[in-house]
């Protein structure tokens, strides 16, 4: 009996979703556009830095160093002279981001003491940019020194001397895309799960059809299930599309099991849908639903480690992040896709997700029961 009603309701929901062509198109386009924009526009990667060269040595060795820097593709010599003042001006007017000063005794020192100093000066207005450029320069200089079997100590100003000995595991090219895309997919699922659920239920309130349904023998459980199941399947389909785009368009590695990814997503969506249901019980209009959903989703995303690492957050925020389902799902996605983690490796996060799912859904259903008789 109940199942028959559920089937009737589901048919109606899918029919309505199918009728809303604009929504359908948008849902299909969202993974493409978001992945495209967020992964290629919002990047920390530094393409080419303009370098101002002050070469006072004019030796074989100094030329070799500048050649290596240019050949890396990371640096482009945009100006050169023997004058410190001219170099300063180019840094000020931003025609260069880095100044490389090679002293006149560079080669002589290399030959005599097998060690020489050079100076790198960065425009550190953008700290992150300067840091990345500096580490590129050091890598290239160190490689050149190994080649000559000498040591060149770059004196970096204003930053203190940093010894870089990084080895990128799981993401050896430190590709920003590989790191971001799993997170962006999570954000997509959150949007579909929470926002669409809240809007969909509130729409029935707004239209008055909820009252009409309440004067029929439809049980509450069937109504809620019929609302959540279609959006749950749509979100999973969205994930499938997103993963395909990520794999074939962006070449994001998928080292772990896709079954595990979808399993985790299924659990995570219960949380996201539950939050949507909870929001729908608290508001009266679609406008309110949208506003509240955006507020909640934004906080969730900012506290999730998607854009900024959780370890650099203050202690209280780290605690909050620990109960944030978005954070756990992002961790699972990154671990499974990039590291090839198995179910045992992500068991803790999965457990937390499952627990939040049960909690949120129970709360939402109880709240729903309270607001309607």
């Amino acid at each position, binding site marked *: 009996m109940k199942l028959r009603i559920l089937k*009737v309701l589901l048919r109606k929901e899918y029919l309505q979703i199918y009728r809303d062509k604009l929504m359908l198109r948008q849902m299909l386009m969202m993974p493409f556009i978001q992945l495209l924009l967020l992964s290629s526009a919002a990047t920390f990667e530094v393409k080419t830095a303009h370098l101002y060269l002050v070469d006072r040595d004019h030796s074989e060795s100094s030329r070799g160093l500048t050649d290596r820097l240019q050949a890396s593709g990371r640096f482009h010599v945009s100006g050169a002279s023997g004058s410190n003042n001219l170099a300063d001006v180019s840094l000020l007017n931003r025609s260069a981001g880095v100044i490389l000063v090679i002293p006149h005794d560079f080669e002589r020192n290399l030959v005599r003491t097998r060690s020489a100093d050079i100076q790198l000066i960065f425009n550190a207005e953008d700290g992150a940019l300067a840091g990345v450029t500096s580490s590129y320069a050091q890598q290239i200089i160190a490689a050149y020194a190994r080649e000559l079997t000498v040591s060149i100590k770059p004196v970096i100003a204003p930053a203190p001397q940093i010894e870089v000995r990084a080895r990128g595991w799981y993401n050896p090219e430190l590709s920003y895309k590989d790191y971001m895309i799993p997170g962006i997919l999570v954000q997509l699922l959150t949007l579909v799960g929470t926002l669409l659920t809240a809007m969909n239920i509130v729409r029935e309130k707004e239209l*008055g059809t909820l*009252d*009409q349904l*309440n*004067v*029929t*023998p439809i049980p509450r459980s069937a109504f809620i299930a019929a609302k959540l199941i279609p959006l749950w399947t749509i979100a999973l389909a969205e994930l499938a599309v997103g993963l395909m785009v990520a794999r074939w368009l962006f070449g994001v590695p998928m080292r772990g099991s896709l079954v595990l990814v979808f399993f985790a997503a299924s659990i995570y969506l219960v949380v996201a849908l539950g939050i949507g249901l909870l929001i729908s019980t608290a508001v009266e209009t679609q406008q309110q639903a949208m506003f509240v959903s955006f507020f909640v989703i934004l906080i969730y995303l900012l506290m999730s480690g998607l854009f900024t690492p959780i370890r650099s957050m203050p202690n209280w925020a780290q605690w909050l992040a620990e109960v944030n389902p978005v954070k756990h799902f992002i961790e699972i996605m990154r671990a499974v896709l990039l590291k090839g983690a198995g179910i045992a490796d992500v068991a803790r996060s999965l457990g937390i997700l499952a627990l939040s799912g049960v909690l949120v859904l129970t709360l939402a259903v109880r709240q729903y029961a309270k607001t309607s008789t």
Partner: protein
Amino acid sequence: MVQNAGKRFGKTEALSGVSFEVNHGELFGLAGPDGAGKTTLFRILTTLVLPDTGSATVLGLDAVRDMWKIRSRVGYMPGKFSLYGDLTVKENLSFFASVFGTTIEKGYDLIAPIYSQIEPFAERRADALSGGMKQKLALSCALVHRPDILFLDEPTTGVDAVSRREFWDQLRVLRDSGLTILVSTPYMDEAMRCDRVALMQAGRILEIDIPTEIGSRYPLPLFAITGAERYRLLLELRKASHAHSVFPFGAELHYTDDRAGFDPEVIAGELREYLDYKGFANVQVKSIQAGIEDSFMELMPPPLQKAS
């Protein structure tokens, strides 16, 4: 059927101790101005809200305890059109039929007189229908599962006069087939077409009777007055020393005197003299029996009475 039902929303008392009973197979009207509590009463009877005090029984079932049994046996048509605009006429109807575990075919003979009129547009989306057609679809959806009682909350708001008359003809046909119908309306001409009417105001029922009898208990002498310069006539009559109320009624003015039990002929004479003195010629003053509309006007809240 309803005993002493009350409901408050915050500080507002929407319904204060309402009691009445509707007979089987009756077309029962709830008439009253906006905000009288008609919709709240309907929402209690259709189990959408719970009464704070008192109790309501529908088809012998308690509106709180037996809520789920009631829900499968009533038909409800809310005042605002509330079907799915993005589904077609037929999809809406078949959705509501299947929710009750039935089909359009099984309920077809009951809804046929109404549904057949919109059937040519069966594939049209519901929000593309005109007001009158939407109302017919809503009524079909409320009837398709063959309910034992039908609740219609202000069913004719936003519907043209011809469709309204048709709609009431159809209600009479349904009533004749044995269906119990409860209908609320702010219009007196519609109230006249019910078997019995309850006059509601400010959350109370003031009077329940057959429509033609409701006027008979009008407490004060009433007169129909006709003459030229209608507006000035109205204003001057309101200034008369014993005027209780004066309202325009079609071509006439209805004047109520505040002296209960006074001889109408004496009052009529006084009025003629008064109007003559005020310079009105050819004024006719006639003592009349009050109708439902006079009763209704009498029941309107005082601020509205003085306003015009």
